[in-house]
């Protein structure tokens, strides 16, 4: 077992609306990413994937509020830290974040080199300009980006290039954890492949020590990450290795999600897609029992009222359902 790079223990965060209502967006999430490993998070829109990413950075600004739990990066607990300290000491050097709209993250009036300078100087204000340029050029060419990119403005770059530039700039300080929130959703398949290859290279060359990848594209997760975690209504409902999760999902929600995979392979045409009817519960008042019960085909009366803990099984896998693994598998086989 490798050294844990990122450890999250029972993290709870909430949003407070204008009307002072609490929305529990991340509710008791725990997981660990070891050195050199990558973890994927899958789930539908609004299940709390992006909130979890923001919470993990310790970067709390209203309406997002921290409630309880620990976030430990390489042995250092950052939970409850002041956002300003987090920005100066943690972001960029310990944990880097690629936002969902990374394509629009670059200021159009500034050259790319300026962003690199900004990131470097935020952590070391006295850094020499030439030193920064040399370092940036070396890193860019190593990652397959021409070094002329540094002297360009964002508008001169294509979508895929912009995305790769953002990744290169945000990982320039060799962070221990990289959080990528849907980094390739807005790109076509060829640019997407380039972004993924670049992220793999960052891992292989040791510039980043671990990675958390958020997306709703399951075939992509399967090809990119070692482990997959499925999130539903603020909770983790199942966790396992990528292979186990795609070919042998246990929780009814992950089972439904894996049924919606679309790939250009023989046999996928005419196959019935696993659409899950209904909508996720309102997180202002999360249900007492299983949060998926309302939409679950296999739910019974008990599911709605019994709170369900995380149940470990197999080799390091976990799921959250009242039924046993055997019961669920039998149900799926009989369908």
């Amino acid at each position, binding site marked *: 077992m490798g050294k844990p790079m990122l450890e999250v223990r029972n993290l709870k965060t909430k949003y407070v609306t204008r009307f002072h209502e609490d929305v529990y967006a991340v509710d008791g999430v725990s997981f660990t990413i070891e050195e050199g490993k990558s973890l994927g998070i899958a789930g539908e829109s609004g299940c709390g994937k992006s909130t979890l990413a923001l919470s993990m950075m310790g970067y709390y600004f209203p309406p997002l509020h921290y409630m309880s739990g620990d976030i430990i990066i390489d042995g250092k607990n950052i939970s409850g830290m002041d956002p300003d300290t987090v920005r100066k000491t943690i972001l960029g050097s310990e944990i880097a974040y690629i936002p969902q709209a990374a394509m629009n993250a670059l200021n159009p009036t500034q050259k790319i080199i300026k962003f690199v300078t900004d990131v470097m100087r935020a952590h070391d204000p006295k850094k020499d300009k030439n030193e920064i340029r040399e370092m940036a050029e070396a890193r860019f060419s190593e990652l397959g980006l021409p070094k002329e990119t540094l002297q360009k403005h964002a508008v001169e770059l294509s979508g895929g290039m912009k995305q790769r530039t953002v990744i290169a700039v945000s990982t320039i300080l060799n962070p221990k954890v990289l959080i990528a929130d849907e980094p390739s959703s807005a790109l076509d398949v060829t640019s997407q492949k380039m972004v993924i290859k670049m992220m793999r290279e960052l891992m292989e060359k040791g510039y980043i020590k671990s990675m958390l990848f958020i997306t709703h594209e399951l075939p992509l997760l399967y090809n990119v990450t070692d482990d997959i975690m499925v999130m539903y209504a603020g909770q983790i409902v199942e966790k396992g290795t990528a292979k186990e999760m795609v070919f042998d999902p246990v929780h009814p929600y992950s089972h439904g999600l894996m049924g919606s995979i679309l790939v*250009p392979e023989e046999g996928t045409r005419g196959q019935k897609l*696993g659409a899950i009817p209904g909508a996720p519960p309102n997180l202002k008042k999360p249900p007492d029992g299983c949060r998926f019960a309302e939409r679950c085909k296999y739910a019974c009366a008990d599911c709605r009222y019994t709170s369900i803990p995380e149940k470990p099984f197999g080799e390091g896998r976990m799921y959250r359902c009242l039924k046993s693994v055997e019961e669920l598998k039998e149900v799926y086989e009989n369908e």
Partner: protein
Amino acid sequence: MSENENTRKNIDFAEKPLCLSGRGVTKVFGLGDKKTVAVDHVDFDFHEGEFVSIVGESGSGKTTLSKMLLGLLNQSEGQILFQGKPRDISSGHKKKEYWKGIQAIFQDPFSSFNTFQKVDAVLLDCINMRGGKGLSKQEKFDMMTEACNFVNLKFAELTNKYPFELSGGQMQRLMIARIFLLKPKILLADEPTSMVDACSRATILDMLLNLRDETGMTVIFITHDIGLAYYISDTIYIMEHGKFVEYGKADEVILEPKAPYTKRLISDVPKIHEEWDLSTVDLLNSN
């Protein structure tokens, strides 16, 4: 499952009457040195009841072509035939006539609706457009309820709501309900699922298929996701730099691709039963 499969595999669309076709359709933007040929002499035949996908990367000219099909842009050269006759969109009135036959669903559901119109007003407009102005209130209500039921929305919950109070998936389904009421000959869907998650995507795709089966309309589906195109369509057109490099039945195009571009597109998609080959990517020589 089997029912769906039959309707999707056994029909030979070449024998069906033509719905929309184009000969040498071209669109050129700019003049002189700055000339860009976005769509370059393309020919196509879309038949009645056919589910056609146009697949290509960003910048291949898909959206320009779709705008020309909708009549939002005039072609620089070539001819577009609607039901066998050259279409006439020279005046506003004629354009409106043409739009009774062709309707669209766009990528971004959030900007597809008028923010000031409530859901029932959106649907009422559709009924009026189809000549239902003289119907009684009850009849209109029944039609709206039927349309909402078709897309698994509850009409009673939606009346008096504004579009922005709905989720992205619900909005996209409301768009389909509009199409259900309008019953156009052709539906043009421009990446309708790229902004919704995998779960709602499955629902929307199934609804489009049902809509096609029920009303017999032609669906032109524009996407960059070749896996999705393969799942849903009868015929696939692959577009590169403004030209169709390959077209044919979905099974032929995807399982036995001939053009190198199609092969590359297919190999670039992450799969689950085959190894995803990252070594083919050349990071340095890309733009």
